[in-house]
């Protein structure tokens, strides 16, 4: 496979899990999920759009087109695979963003079932099955020394059909490969539909949002680590040799995200926090009929002030 397409998989870099070009040596032991969501390989943190060169009186623009090379990413978790699908319509509707869409279409997604509940995660509450996925091309469950795979797309079929590496598995083998998830709670923390309805109903309750956002320090970590956050900025970088416009990740946690010269509709912290929660659980649903959260738990696990989205959602639902 590696001679035909780029193969990427989980690897530890500087002590953190990431997805990178698979070198055949990376050990996957202990991998639960990457620190940055796999989204970063689809909506890149910093993506050059075009550059310009002065030609006489006028600049000439040269674009950096979408990458076309096929690639394969393995080790993707159900939550992150779902997130890639959730973001699809944002970039497909109306004006098509070929950069994201092409990244999706050129990538074979190989998912793998979780065996350990991630810190802070609430995938179950978000309707994600960590041991199954309809959002990948092939989804694997590991059993002792072996994998049982479910092939979900024609592309996945084509990949499996190529070698004699794979044997036919029975439905029973697939079912029994579903094991326990270590550390998972028995009882759901909240009911998603209630959260969704209440988040909309309680949008105007300033006091609620002030209370739940009180300890937020607007660092933006939750947005950068989020597999469904997609807000971006367009910015220029000009050096004596190079002049490029980039698309780069941005964050609704920052006050200059919406700050204009004389007015900022989200000047106060609680308005920005309200925006983040409302966007995910209310506005995004109104616009795209999906909730823009997959319960991966990164925002919970890595918040420097332990602001726990699960607790916030419980409070909003109350």
């Amino acid at each position, binding site marked *: 496979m590696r001679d035909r397409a780029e193969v990427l998989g989980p690897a530890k870099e500087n002590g953190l899990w990431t997805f990178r070009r698979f070198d055949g040596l990376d050990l996957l032991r202990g991998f639960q999920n990457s620190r940055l969501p796999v989204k970063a390989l689809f909506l890149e943190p910093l993506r050059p759009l075009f550059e310009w060169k002065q030609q006489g009186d006028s600049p000439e623009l040269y*674009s950096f087109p979408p990458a076309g090379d096929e690639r394969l990413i393995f080790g993707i978790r159900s939550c992150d695979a779902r997130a890639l699908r959730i973001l699809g319509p944002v*970039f497909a509707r109306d004006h098509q963003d070929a950069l994201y869409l092409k990244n999706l279409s050129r990538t074979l997604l190989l998912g793998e079932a979780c065996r350990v509940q991630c810190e802070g995660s609430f995938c179950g509450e978000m309707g994600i099955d960590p041991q199954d996925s309809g959002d990948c091309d092939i989804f694997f469950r590991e059993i002792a020394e072996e994998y049982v795979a479910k092939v979900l797309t024609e592309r996945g079929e084509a990949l499996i059909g190529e070698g004699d590496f794979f044997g036919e598995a029975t439905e029973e083998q697939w079912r029994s490969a579903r094991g326990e998830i270590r550390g998972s709670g028995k009882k759901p923390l909240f009911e998603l539909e209630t959260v969704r309805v209440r988040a909309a109903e309680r949008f105007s309750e300033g006091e609620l949002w002030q209370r739940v956002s009180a300890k937020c320090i607007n660092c933006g970590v939750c947005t950068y680590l989020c597999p469904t956050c997609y807000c971006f900025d367009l910015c220029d970088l000009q050096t004596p040799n190079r002049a490029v416009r980039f698309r780069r990740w941005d964050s609704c946690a920052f006050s200059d995200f919406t700050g204009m010269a004389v007015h900022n509709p989200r000047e106060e912290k609680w308005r920005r926090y309200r925006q983040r929660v409302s966007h995910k659980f209310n506005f995004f649903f109104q616009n795209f009929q999906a909730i823009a959260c997959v319960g991966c738990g990164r925002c919970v696990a890595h918040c420097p002030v332990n602001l726990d989205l699960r607790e916030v959602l419980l409070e909003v639902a109350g």
Partner: protein
Amino acid sequence: MISPVAERGIYQPDLMEVTKVIAETWDTKTLHIQFKDPALRKSFSFLSGQFAEYSVFGEGEATFCISSSPTRMDHLEVSVKRVGRVTSALHQLNAGDMIGFRGPYGNHFPLDMLQGRNLLFIGGGIGLAPLRSLIQNVLDHRSEYREIMIIYGARSPQDLCFKYDLEAWSRDPSVKMITTVDVEDKDWKGKVGLVPSVMEEAAPSPAGAAAIACGPPIMIRYTLKSLEKIGFAPSQVWTTLEMKMKCGLGKCGRCNIGPLYVCKDGPVFSFEEIRSFISDEF
């Protein structure tokens, strides 16, 4: 890696040449611009109320409405108040300089719903820019509309934009033009007072009328209240909103008011549509 312009994405602008620069006030300029590509000059079209993203390469991109009318397509006009990095760079430009242009984006004023009605235009400061596109548009098809009243206010006589238009509209017998300033100077002949109160005093009849307002958020909030007070229903009032934008295409995530994106669901909204959000998020 580098490809010709044909493969460019949705965030890449076209080039436009600045053909003329007009100093409107001490901090506001109007640029006349024209596509570098002659084919685009012919094929480009837009509607009053739409906006675009304007680039000064190396400084970045900023959002402004097209302040000229689609009935006058010799060139496009954009009016820019100097408030930050990109606007300052735009103010540095001279005739012959090149800028980037992406657009037109967003929705437009509902001309079909304005036809046959009395029209009340209410503008504040640089907020006259989008209204001016519509006013010129309407005046170029004058017979399709009934009475026209324009109320325009600025902080001081020095802050009045489009003075050449204000004079022309004052001379036009088919237009009732009221100009007001917050703080007068010794030569000022117009009204003194805030736009909402001047409007209440003029008390245009809401019967068969439509009001279109644009100005700073504080003016919009009070103007909407005053319009209700003199009998305008929310469905008779349109406004065009300003929010910070980057992509202009409903993707970059910052210009929403509730579930609505000002860039693609707006910038023109009827008061009815945004009523529940306006006091809270704008």
